[in-house]
């Protein structure tokens, strides 16, 4: 069937609980209703971030064993279904050098940029998702998309640097409208245009290939073999570029759902629990249909104000007010709130992993970067902020590891992430967090 955009729009404008034109876009399926077969085309790797405020409880989340087959600790239990697709990092340190240690800021800013911020609420450089988007989002409709499950558009930790952050869509409806409302472009339509830069680069590679004959003159057999390898590498690069000239095929089996309608979006935990997976689902659909390749989701601000209805203090105040239980050695109510964050992360991973795509899922073809702002919120410590990765970046990242950082700078994770995303980068970070040392044991 031919689907007209008008059909979609009409459904939207007729009321908040919009009855969609069709719940299922057949044009994404072949005649048998099967997902489009994987064309063997190189799938783009997608990047997501997940921000949660106030960290976790060290004694309850850090596994004692490092490496593969680490034990599932009580606070990581909600993530157990995805353990084999994740990496967790403990003991990573933020070094602020001569800068102040801004509470609820220096930690997360350092993780996102590799640089200790000189001013509160500001980033001293582009954040990692933007650096990655610069490279991987060529030609997509949105360079990146952000959403905030707390309902505050300022709760976005994606920035081009300075005090400005990119605005987050503060409700599922707003996110839906952005992605699948007016301007939604069916990638299988004929007027899709490739990036003109790609064609120019092709000519350059072609010229390099042309050097082959002259260069191979007078080479010994051993050197000939080596140069064969070089020119084969050039050819591979040419093929990759050629692929980028073809319009992307959607190999994910997806159905665009009905518009979500309005709903309360605030800090009450039941609402956060409803909104988060819904935003994650929409974000995942956006990634699957190549609306964007970078999706940022925050469930709170750094000093998370999430509260359980009936709890007059809420998460942030509890982290400061609750005494440490002498027998347990930690703050019990805070520990409960910590687990909620992990449950919310699990609900996001469920959405990403729930989209089959080619021989795997969207999660497999992605890298999700989850992190927080403090390691011990009670005292604003930044030593050991929980950081997790999910997805294997189309096979470029090994998974299933617990990396015990031992005081290594948090920038090592960001560097590893960029390399796994295929960025040509040798170092990242500034000051004491400047590093050239990625976790090569994780890079496939």
């Amino acid at each position, binding site marked *: 069937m031919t689907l007209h955009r008008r059909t979609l729009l009409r459904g939207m404008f007729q009321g908040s609980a919009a009855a969609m034109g069709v719940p299922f876009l057949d044009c994404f399926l072949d005649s048998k209703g099967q997902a489009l077969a994987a064309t063997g085309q190189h799938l783009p790797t997608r990047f997501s971030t997940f921000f949660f405020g106030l960290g976790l409880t060290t004694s309850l989340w850090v596994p004692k064993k490092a490496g593969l087959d680490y034990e599932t600790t009580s606070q990581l239990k909600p993530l157990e279904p995805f353990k084999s697709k994740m990496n967790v990092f403990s003991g990573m340190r933020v070094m602020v050098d001569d800068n102040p240690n801004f509470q609820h800021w220096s930690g997360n800013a350092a993780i996102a940029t590799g640089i200790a911020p000189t001013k509160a609420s500001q980033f001293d450089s582009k954040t990692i998702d933007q650096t990655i988007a610069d490279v991987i989002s060529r030609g997509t409709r949105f360079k990146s998309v952000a959403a905030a499950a707390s309902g505050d558009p300022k709760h976005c930790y994606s920035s081009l640097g300075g005090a400005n952050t990119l605005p987050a869509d503060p409700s599922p409806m707003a996110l839906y409208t952005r992605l699948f409302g007016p301007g939604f472009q069916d990638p299988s339509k004929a007027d899709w245009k490739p990036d003109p830069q790609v064609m120019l680069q092709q*000519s350059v590679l072609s010229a390099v290939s042309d050097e082959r004959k002259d260069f191979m003159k007078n080479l010994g*057999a051993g050197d000939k073999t080596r*140069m064969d390898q070089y020119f084969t590498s050039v050819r591979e690069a040419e093929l990759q570029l050629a692929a980028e000239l073809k319009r992307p095929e959607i190999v994910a089996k997806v159905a665009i759902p009905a518009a979500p309608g309005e709903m309360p979006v605030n800090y009450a935990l039941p609402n956060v629990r409803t909104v988060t997976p819904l935003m994650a689902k929409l974000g995942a659909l956006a990634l699957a249909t190549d609306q964007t390749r970078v999706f940022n989701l925050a469930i709170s601000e750094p000093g998370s104000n999430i509260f359980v209805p009936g709890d007059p203090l809420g998460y942030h105040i509890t982290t400061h007010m609750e005494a440490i239980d002498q027998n347990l050695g930690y703050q019990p109510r805070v520990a409960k709130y910590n687990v909620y964050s992990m449950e919310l992360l699990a609900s996001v991973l469920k959405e990403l992993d729930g989209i089959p795509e080619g021989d795997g899922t969207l999660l497999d073809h992605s890298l999700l970067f989850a992190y927080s702002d403090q390691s011990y919120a009670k005292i604003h410590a930044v030593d050991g902020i929980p950081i997790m990765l999910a997805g294997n970046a189309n096979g470029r990242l090994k998974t299933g590891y617990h990396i015990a950082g031992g005081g*290594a700078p948090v920038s090592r994770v960001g560097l590893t992430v960029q390399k796994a995303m295929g960025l040509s980068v040798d170092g990242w970070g500034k000051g004491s967090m400047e590093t050239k040392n990625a976790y090569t044991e994780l890079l496939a």
Partner: protein
Amino acid sequence: MAVILVCAVFGVGSVWAADNSHVASLRRLSEQEYRNSIADIFGKDIAVQGMFEPQVRMGGLVATSTAVLSVTPAGFESFSKMADSIATQVTDEKHRGKLVSCNPKAANAPDDACASEFLGHYGLLLFRRPLTSAELRARVNLAGAMTKSSGDFYAGLRYGLAELIQSPNFLFRKEMAVPAGGKAYTLDPFSRATRLSYLMWDTAPDAELLKAAEAGDLNTAAGLEKQVDRLLASPRLETGMRAFFTDMLELDTFDNVSKDALIYPKWGGAMAPSAKEETLRTTINLALRENGDMRDLMTTRKTFINRSLAAIYDVDFSFGGDWMPYEFPADSGRSGIVTQVSTLSMFSHPGQSSPTKRGVALMDIFLCEPTPTPPANVDFSVINDTSGPLKTVRERLMAHATTPTCASCHTHSDPIGLSLEGFNTIGGRRLTENGQLIDLSATIKGTTFRDGPGLGKYLHDNPKYPACLARKLYAYAKGVDSEEVDATAFKAAYKNFTDSGYRMRALLKGLAESPEFFSTPAAIQDASAEQPTKLASH
């Protein structure tokens, strides 16, 4: 010192792809060489950001592998992106005033004359030889086509330049051999310039060296000496020698070093780069600034430390700058670079010292005596058991060194390491181990010495050390396996070295001006592709 060069005179410019020439070696640029070359050709403010493929150590040198490694798809992708990034910067509005010497007739149309000037100029510097007219025409055409597609003259220059920077002619040092009379072959002039420049300055030949090559100066004794002396006198010699010593002293081993955080929490992220830098500063200071006796590298107590190293050495740091000169007192047990944190920690386990690893490494690095790998079925449990009656590492090593199959290698390599047992695995000093006094004595082939200074003196007095240094420098310069170099190949260089009282500059001069330096094998190498053979793991 008089060196008589016997060489054939040949016309410059017609050299390339002459029928009787062959490619003597094809060496992939190392990361540092790539960066230095780009910085020298385009200026230091051009950012080079990218991933470089790893190298491997062969015959004790990473430089040797440049002659056998190629470029993988991931590596080429990185080179391609870097080339584009560099070219974009060079032709952007900020830089083009300085780096593009001509102005196009129109900003949005091809201008072959200006493109030719630009691409010819940088082509010469990048390829380390003039482009042939066909090569230049191809690039000018490419640039013109790109200008037409994009409507921007400078975009055309960008793509043309990017092509040059990812070309194998830049990425690989192609050394051409031409007949030299009889069955002998020697490097052609531009290849001579390249070999000299990367040895001395670790970078592409500068304009003056290229000019000397073109004029045939490098084929005359006087002309060659003039350039060699110029290169030796320059402060840029430090860059070249840093690269050489980083390689010879195996300082890249640090990339794989980790220490047990519970036993040695002092070892943090800053330690490895600091230790590396200390050793380089000490070596360069002796070799080039003091122009000293290179044997003193084994005995000098002078070094340079920063705040992190001061904590391992347990001394006061003066905070005068990031680095301060420091001289160990005579009773410190320290002696030369063999007792610096770098040597002691690189060749050692995460949680405890390893006389065997240290011994094997030092024998290989300084005496050119590599140790074979252990047999497959060795039982390491005795050596690693600290709870048994054998309290020190030494005792446990000795316990199995009496076994004939083990003894042959262990008596070869362990003694050096045993004399260093006064230092733990992160290079800190210790007198006792598990409550027992440490015995620092060692015997090699009848010579007995003890502790760091004893080892230092042993190495200082051992003629194998300066010979090994000369051998490694020769192998590094030529990209050949140091274990396969014939002693006669560097005989002249070595004599210059010893006659001068073991001065580094004399070794370099003697090497560069010796007939062997530019000589190459006669036949084209054939048989199987040279893959890196089994590498001795240290």
